């Protein structure tokens, strides 16, 4: 893996949201949604991002494409740190980086037809018009398992899964290089999940696309990702090559997560031993120092409350942030 193959390099990325109170609207505390996240993604590869709900995955994705202004850290895209670029300087990057959003209901404008939703980015970047534009829209709709007649209908006429496919078609419309897929398949039925994942893989090999794939379905993440990162409460806890992570999870949180995967086989799932996480789920609002997982970790030692463990390489590209190692 040569340095030059890297498309994305994230270094100590942070995003804090202020909580304001009172008539003076004073910032009283901070939600540290992303608090030190680092990883790299090579061109043409996929990094899977998993972790507890609310741990900052979506915020991380939105900050990388600068829908949110980063609080701190570097976002190196193809050799350029875009973290501090102005809106104007960001313009060429907006087309290269697309996002498939988590919530297929809130993210589609209900007054626009499906065709116009899919074509919006084509129009913004003035890429095509007329017949060429509508042919591209029809092609995209069919590519994601809808049909071209759907172009004239409105989002509320579609089921949850159908709406998510509209969002995928929209992201593909401008032929981006890098796509952040924020739970692109959780609303789909398993057969269409398989179709969409095969489609994302085909598009990846045809166009050399690079993905950040956020999901909760760990067996799907394992299937699609070259590397997987595990986040907990705003912090990257473990990153490793995907088979390595699933066969040798090091962080106690990763171990608990993998043990809780529901298996689509009643006899196996009934007999499965889960690591149940005890203890209070901590809040990202002004989190205390030390390891974020310590309150629920059965291996916690005094040092875990004092020093925040660094994400370090424990061999062959397996990174873990835990005082056990």
């Amino acid at each position, binding site marked *: 893996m040569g340095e030059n193959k890297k498309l994305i390099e994230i270094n100590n990325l942070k995003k804090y*949201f202020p*909580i304001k109170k009172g008539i003076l609207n004073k910032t009283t505390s901070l939600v540290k949604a992303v608090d030190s996240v680092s990883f790299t993604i090579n061109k043409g590869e996929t990094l899977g991002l*998993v972790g*507890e*709900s*609310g*741990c900052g995955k*979506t915020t991380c994705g939105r900050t990388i494409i600068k829908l949110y202004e980063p609080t701190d850290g570097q976002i190196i895209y193809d050799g350029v740190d875009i973290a501090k670029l102005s809106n104007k300087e960001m313009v060429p990057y907006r087309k290269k980086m697309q996002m498939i959003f*988590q*919530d297929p*209901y*809130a993210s589609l404008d209900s007054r626009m037809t499906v065709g116009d939703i899919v074509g919006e980015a084509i129009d913004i970047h003035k890429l095509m018009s007329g017949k060429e534009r509508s042919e591209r829209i029809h092609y995209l709709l069919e590519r994601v*398992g809808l*049909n071209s007649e759907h172009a004239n*209908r409105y989002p*509320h*006429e*579609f*089921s*949850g*899964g*159908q709406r998510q496919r509209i969002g995928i078609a929209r992201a593909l419309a401008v032929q981006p290089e890098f796509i952040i897929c924020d*739970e692109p398949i*959780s*609303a*789909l*039925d*398993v*057969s*269409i*999940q*398989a179709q969409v*994942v*095969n489609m994302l*893989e085909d598009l990846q090999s045809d166009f050399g696309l690079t993905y950040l794939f956020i999901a*909760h379905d*760990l*067996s*799907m993440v*394992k*299937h699609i990702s070259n590397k997987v990162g595990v986040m907990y409460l705003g912090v990257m806890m473990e990153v490793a090559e995907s088979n390595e992570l699933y*066969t040798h999870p090091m962080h106690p949180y990763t171990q*608990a*997560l993998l043990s*809780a*995967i*529901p*298996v*689509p*086989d*009643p006899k196996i*799932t*009934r007999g499965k031993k*889960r690591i149940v*996480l005890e203890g*209070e*789920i*901590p*809040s990202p*609002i002004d989190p205390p120092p030390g390891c974020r997982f310590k309150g629920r970790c059965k291996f916690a030692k005094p040092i875990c409350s004092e020093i925040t463990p660094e994400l370090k390489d424990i061999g062959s590209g397996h990174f873990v942030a835990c005082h056990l190692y």
Partner: protein
Amino acid sequence: MEKLLQVNDLKTSFFTHVGEVKAVRGVSFYLDKGEALGIVGESGSGKSITMMSIMKLLSDNGKIINGDIYFEGKNLVKADEGEMEKIRGNDISMIFQDPMTSLNPVLKIGDQITEPIIKHKNMNKAEAYKRAAHMLSLVGIPSPEDRMKQYPHEFSGGMRQRVMIAMALSCDPKLLIADEPTTALDVTIQAQILELMKELREKINTSIILITHDLGVVADVCSRINVMYGGLLVETANTDDLFYDSRHPYTWGLLGSVPNPNTLIRERLKPIEGQPPDLLNPPKGCPFAPRCEYTMKICMTDRPPMFEIGENHKAACWLNHKDAPKVSSPFKRGDK
């Protein structure tokens, strides 16, 4: 056992500018007290609309055009809005599929959760507030008192979903309809929520209808499963029979689509080829016939009846006719 819910030949359509969308085309099923029924199936097959019909929460252009829905012996199809309002949130609670649009963006989370508790549980504001905070901590939301002062957009997708779950559980319903309740949740919190639902069932005998695409979740929680396709129920069986002895090619395709959890090689996934039926002009015969590997002549012309396979097990596929060729599922558990 007494049936809590009995749905007979339900048909629901939407009248749109392009025509009548036949979303539910004759669905019958029942639910016992304290039972957990799973509903799986193709996206757009009518799972949510069947439930919205039971709740009578269809959009203005949607209408129940046929059938009966008996809840504790009362036909909800004939109930007026006033009666439905008493039932909703009290006897029957629903966790909706879209957590963002079901929460009011301009109201604080706390106010949204306490309102139904005040209304249905006869509590004063302070008591309701306490119960709401307790429910939020049960579904794994830390510092609930602070969080109740925030607005929905300040919550992550999964946290909104948990707020919806807390709301649905807060009034101890007799029937809980959960439409994709855990899609936005990580597996550890999902396990916690499913545990909570199991407890509810054991403690207060709540019946549960769980719609999900996650076959692992139904395998874990449900004792019986309905499979829907193209606005119809195509198979129903006890959980083990559905996983190990299914009799419908659509179910086979469904079970075969999920990634093999026990491999280190990247195998290509096997989706069901083809497109789902257009519900504006649903096919005359079996809705799955155009995508089915085993299609016979009759499948294109006649809709298959529900063939009785065994106890609680029925499948709407002509392969179960006594004169049909014998084929069995290409998908075997244990392969994986």
